[in-house]
């Protein structure tokens, strides 16, 4: 297969760039390098999304250019970065900038003693190859971004690896920070969470641009996460996407929940020019539960494109999706979700809800909540609403002497609190609230 195939665009991610990338990671296991080569092949021959692709309905395809990015950005010294330990003080940290580890704080001695592994993906590939091989990017890409998911795998340099052994409860959350510094930088963050049977862990991912440089640097972020919850395990994953406003961002999530496992993922979307988030949850065994949450604050001309798939593969599984978007200015959001209930997944309880709060006359919200049900003894519902703030509630607050701007802020936070309230960790909850507040006041 030729890379210069006229049907497929590779932009800055040429064969030469890929070869240079491979040379940098040549010390990693051969199976991984082989998988990367295969991924690059898939990326290079796959066409860019077309108007007729249902998985890209309503998306702005014209802006999906892969040109003008730097696949091998220079290192970004930690000292020059505007780093804050958001929401996870005292816990283990890994800080990546331009795909490389620049700072870290190991787990507390107590956690390490319990056998929890918190390391870089590169170290894990060398030390825990079998674990990584079994879980890293093993779920299929089903939501339309095959090309970009392949690009992620091909250029993935480093990321975070978290392994919690059987029956262990991690005492504190762990935090992973990914920074993109400099203009044209391409980053490929990845977080792999493996919670063995009856283990429990909370992981927070932060995606930020290195400094408050002006004008905002143009970046390309193509990240992913794999969340694996063994029997009876519990994984809480929080991601805060706050890339620069000139970033083209992709995030791919694959969640696999085994018997009686519980996975909660919450994605806060605030940054980027155009951000696509694909979330794929598999409820693989009876009793599995997946909680899929998202909050979006869309400003200016930002576009947030969220695609979700919850597949119920076994009886007695449940899932609950709640995606809330607040739209300001000329922002645009797309929510396209699908609940699939396989033929033998009786007693499924699935819910899917998308709420759009319209705060401007020029904002645009698209909702495509979908169901595909092949079992009959199920309870599946979905709902989608798009509306402005309730005028009566606004009037009530104003009648109590609260200024209109303040009343609006209160009501918007009321709107988000339904989601934020599901985060048990107080500091993380407050951090999320602060980021949203900052976005509103900006």
């Amino acid at each position, binding site marked *: 297969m030729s890379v210069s195939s006229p049907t497929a665009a590779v932009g800055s991610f040429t064969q030469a760039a890929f070869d240079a990338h491979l040379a940098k990671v040549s010390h990693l296991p051969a199976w991984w390098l082989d998988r990367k080569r295969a991924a690059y092949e898939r990326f290079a021959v796959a066409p860019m999304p077309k108007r007729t692709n249902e998985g890209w309905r309503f998306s702005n395809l014209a802006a999906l250019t892969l040109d003008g990015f730097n696949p091998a950005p220079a290192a970004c010294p930690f000292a020059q970065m505007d780093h804050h330990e958001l929401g996870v003080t005292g816990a283990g940290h890994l800080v990546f900038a331009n795909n490389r580890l620049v700072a870290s704080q190991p787990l507390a001695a107590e956690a390490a003693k319990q056998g929890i592994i918190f390391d870089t993906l590169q170290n894990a590939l060398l030390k825990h190859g079998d674990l990584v091989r079994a879980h890293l990017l093993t779920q299929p890409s089903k939501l339309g971004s095959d090309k970009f998911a392949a690009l992620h795998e091909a250029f993935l340099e480093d990321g975070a690896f978290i392994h919690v052994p059987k029956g262990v409860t991690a005492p504190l959350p762990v935090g992973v920070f990914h920074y993109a510094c400099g203009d044209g930088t391409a980053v490929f963050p990845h977080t792999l969470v493996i919670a063995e049977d009856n283990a429990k862990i909370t992981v927070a991912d932060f995606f930020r641009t290195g400094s408050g440089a002006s004008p905002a640097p143009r970046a390309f972020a193509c990240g992913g996460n794999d969340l694996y919850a063994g029997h009876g395990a519990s994984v809480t994953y929080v991601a805060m996407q706050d890339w620069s406003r000139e970033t083209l961002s992709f995030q791919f999530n694959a969640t696999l929940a085994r018997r009686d496992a519980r996975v909660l993922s919450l994605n806060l979307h605030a940054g980027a020019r155009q951000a696509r988030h694909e979330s794929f949850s598999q409820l693989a065994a009876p009793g599995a539960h997946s909680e899929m949450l998202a909050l979006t604050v869309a400003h200016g001309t930002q576009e947030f494109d969220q695609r979700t798939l919850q597949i119920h593969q076994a009886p007695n599984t449940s899932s609950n999706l709640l995606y809330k978007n607040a739209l300001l200015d000329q922002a645009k959001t797309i929510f396209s979700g699908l609940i699939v209930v396989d033929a033998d997944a009786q007693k499924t309880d699935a819910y899917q809800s998308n709420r759009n709060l319209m705060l401007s006359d020029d904002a645009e*919200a698209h909702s495509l909540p979908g169901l595909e049900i092949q079992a*009959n003894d199920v309870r599946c519902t979905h709902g989608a609403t798009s509306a402005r703030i309730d005028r009566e509630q606004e009037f009530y607050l104003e009648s109590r002497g609260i200024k209109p701007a303040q009343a609006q802020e209160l009501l918007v936070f009321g709107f988000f609190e339904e989601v934020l309230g599901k985060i048990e960790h107080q500091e993380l909850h407050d951090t999320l609230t602060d980021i949203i507040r900052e976005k509103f006041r900006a």
Partner: protein
Amino acid sequence: MKPLPDIDTAPTIADEAAVNPVAGIDQTKGDFQYKVDYAFDAGTGLTEDTVRYISSVKKEEPWLLDFRLKALKTFLEKPMPTHWATKDLENIDFDKIRYYLAQGQKPKRTWDEVPDDIKQTFERLGIPEQERKFLAGVEAQFDSEAAYSNIKEIVAKQGVIFVNSTEGLREHPEIFRKFFGKVIPTGDNKFSALNSAVFSGGSFIYVPPGVKVAQPLQAYFRINAENFGQFERTLIIADEGSEVVYMEGCTAPKFSTSTLHSAVVELVALKGAKIQYITVQNWANNVFNLVTKRAVAHEEAEVKWIDCNIGSRLTMKYPGVVLKGRKARGEVISIALANDGQHQDTGAKMIHAADDTTSVVVSKSISVGQGRATYRGQVHIPRHLKGCKNNTECDALLINTNSRTDTYPAITVRGDKNATQHEASVSKVSEDMIFYMQSRGLTEAQAMSLAVNGFINDLARQFPMEYSVELKRLIDLEMEGSVG
């Protein structure tokens, strides 16, 4: 332009295999044929000649022939919409379909030859004796001349035009040409293009300003072999402040020898007018029913589609309303029942194009056996409108463990002065309910029928009485053998 082909030299059927377009397809309901001599027959397959032939038989004006030929070109150019629709569409063999038939003679079949199970079905549905013969193909035309001319007489006094499409285009071009093909342009989709190329049959109705038509107009009453045609074209224009109710189809199984039915229905409700369009579709299990239905509602007008789909192999139909004038209102009430081997892909489209427009969609589907029911909907509220509201509710009921249902809505809202709400649920019949009814002496099947009828009851009540009674009986019939 080529000279019109002479009728005698029109394409003829070469062999017996081509005569029966349903050969090789399992026809559980409609597997009987009868010899019919057609006065006009365009043969099978679709070429420019077929279109010219249809146009010449109908003695159409040149503009209409041009319209048809352009449509044919569009049809041939457009791809199948399989990037979102079911792949089953690829099984349509356009070369084996007859695009035009006009019956000249009565069929030679007698009532005694009608299979017993079909007679029983009619009996149980309570279809009047006269109509049974027509539906079973014993009579080419439903003998209800009296009822028909009666209605026609009454409405004609009010100035209502109620004719078939050929007559409408020929005799009232000043009214119909203005609206014809305007609500649904030829290129709207592949099948609307096909219909535009080969249409025949269907109704043309014009209701003058302020006229309220007292009784529902029924295609059923109109005596015309083209009535149940494959490619009917209906256009209804309700002038300012008028009101009209139109009904098509019937609840009895319709036996069809054609495998493709592709109608286009356009409604225009001018200022303050009200149109209600009721469809009950029960085609045989081998029919692809691909219909485009759309209305334009002007200021303060109201359009209501009541759409019930029970038959066919695959139905794809999404009645729409373009809310073009301030305070216009659109409503779609949809009932779908999908049994083994059936896919009911139905839904609604609401395009809000003016301030203070409101729309409501209520859809209920029932999947029985391996049947598949799909709701597909679109709600569109573009920028800088205010006071627009949409409310959509979709409920799906699954009867058997292998039944299937899907829901695919698409809602677009721009601006902060409008509100939309969409809700859908999927469930099965409550076991408690069935248990209770069985404890009262009902069989499981009876209990199930009662529960299913209860599920659609609030929608079925909106149908005219005789339709809702037939619908209820039909559901009883469909539910038989689905449980236990």
